[in-house]
């Protein structure tokens, strides 16, 4: 349970207690229960309908938030995972492979967090090394060769800030992906499903359409990092998050995101089946809208989409 959900949780507990009491004793509280349940509904609408920036950050970081693999299992059939960048190793922080999406062969790639500590250590908490980005690029180039659309899932705190990552060219690996993704001659759809941490997220994020789950975030730097740099105080993370415009509704308004995918009440972790269905609906429509474009149109559309981002003015 997250901090902002506390009132809901308290009310739910009270209702449960009353139900138990009614069952065990000869008192009829059904009218009371009915009233409280109505209040719960209003409260839920109120709280989940008015989630603040910091609430969304908490949901995006929820340990039980569904991962790339959770969605791959529900959205695709015949997923076949492919490993390795053919240069150095296999980075488990990024997974990828081929699969079928409603009958259409596609390539799927995404950041992959772990479900528990052990898996998180193996997957480096979803923070890729250069070989992760290079594996992704290899799979994207393969998709291009076989004219398969590409779907990427973005879910990382960021590219890993480590010694080995620097030695092997973290910067170059990300830069190369931006460069090559810009020129891909197949339809590409990117979906932010959790945290979209800076360059590490963008390294899988240059597509024809960018979709974002309602409670996911996408930012140039983590709120903690921004607070430390701007105000020399990491505890001001909440203030930084509120200033930086990192939530799906904000990014939709800024024109960075093409569509926001609604989440189930309180966040995707509450009902992954339903959440996958929500994604499916938007993904299907987004893919359909670009499938008819020819190669040149796809590259042009992607170019124009990114070229218009930013705000400039001129001295008069």
């Amino acid at each position, binding site marked *: 349970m997250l901090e902002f959900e506390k009132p809901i949780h308290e009310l739910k507990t009270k209702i449960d207690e009353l139900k138990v009491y009614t069952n065990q004793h000869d008192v009829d509280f059904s009218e009371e229960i009915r009233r409280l349940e109505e209040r719960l509904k209003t409260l839920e609408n109120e709280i989940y309908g008015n989630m603040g920036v910091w609430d969304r950050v908490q949901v995006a970081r929820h340990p039980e938030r569904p991962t790339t693999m959770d969605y791959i299992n529900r959205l695709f059939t015949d997923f076949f995972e492919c490993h390795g960048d053919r240069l150095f190793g296999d980075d488990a922080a990024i997974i990828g492979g081929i699969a079928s999406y409603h009958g259409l062969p596609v390539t799927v790639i995404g950041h992959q967090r772990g479900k528990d500590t052990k898996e998180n250590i193996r997957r480096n908490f979803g923070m890729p090394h250069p070989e992760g980005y290079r594996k992704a690029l290899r799979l994207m180039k393969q998709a291009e060769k076989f004219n398969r659309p590409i779907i990427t899932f973005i879910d990382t705190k960021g590219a890993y800030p480590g010694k080995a990552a*620097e030695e092997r060219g973290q910067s170059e690996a990300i830069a190369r992906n931006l460069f090559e993704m810009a*020129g891909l001659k197949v339809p590409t759809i990117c979906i932010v499903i959790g945290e979209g941490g800076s*360059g590490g997220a963008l390294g899988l994020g240059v597509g024809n359409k960018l979709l974002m789950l309602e409670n996911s975030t996408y930012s140039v730097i983590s709120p903690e990092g921004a607070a430390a740099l701007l105000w020399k105080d990491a505890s001001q993370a909440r203030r930084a998050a509120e200033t930086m415009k990192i939530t799906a509704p904000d990014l939709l308004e800024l024109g960075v995101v093409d569509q926001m995918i609604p989440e189930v009440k309180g966040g995707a972790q509450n009902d992954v089946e339903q959440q996958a269905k929500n994604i499916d609906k938007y993904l299907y429509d987004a893919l359909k809208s670009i499938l008819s474009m020819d190669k040149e149109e796809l590259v042009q559309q992607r170019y124009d989409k990114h070229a218009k981002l930013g705000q400039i003015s001129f001295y008069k």
Partner: protein
Amino acid sequence: MQIKDLFSKKKKYASIPSEVMKQDLPDGVMTKCPKCKKISITKELIKNVKVCSNCGFHHQMTAFERIEFLLDEASFEEFDKDMISSNPLHFPDYIEKLESDRKKTDLNEAVVTGKGTIDGIPVVIAVMDSRFRMGSMGSVVGEKITRAIERATSEFLPFIIFTASGGARMQEGILSLMQMAKTSAALNRHSELGCLAISILTNPTTGGVSASFASLGDFNFAEPGALIGFAGRRIIEQTIREELPEDFQTAEFLLNHGQLDAVLPRTEMRSKLYTILHLHQGGVLQ
């Protein structure tokens, strides 16, 4: 306090000259090298393209100093000089900070772009200046670089960029991040047509700039001793909990790890760039 202190002329405290006083002083006649501490005559230092004659330390260079030293005299034609940042996220104090950097540097933003010639060979060039908001990339830096690349593409010219940047500019949030995609896409087009791109990474080139156009030249060079990396040294030390080697993330370290074509001393920069440009002008077997 004792009576005799009243007559002592020695101050008991150090005084820091105010900003006004600092600006009143004439430009330093002498400059001290931060590495070997040798004091040299500033005029001589500038003549030696701001490279310390004793230890080879490369002093910071402004964008226009670089342009002047690299391009043929009077060949430079600046692009988008009047483009300035706005404040898309309404970030507190951002406009004031931009204004103060404009005054301090005489630049409108952290990059100067334009067209000129190097020994007669026309090029489009972009030079970043780390004095302006630490050379960080917001919408304007991204847009100016993108337009410069597009100009190079449409005129089939080589594109040369000197990078110096702390990374993406936080005050423009996600829009800064998107400049990485925008500039990289422009370079992809430039490359698809077979045009030449050269990137020279200077001190410092980190974060979102090193993870986009700075690493995307057909040739990637760096100046000696330049700090180049994706993540900051402190963050890495905190993450891996071990001390990093002294030369970590220097140009020489990157060269050793296969991340650069060469480390080029500034004194040889012009002639080396000319050689590469010249070799891309075509030729026939004789």
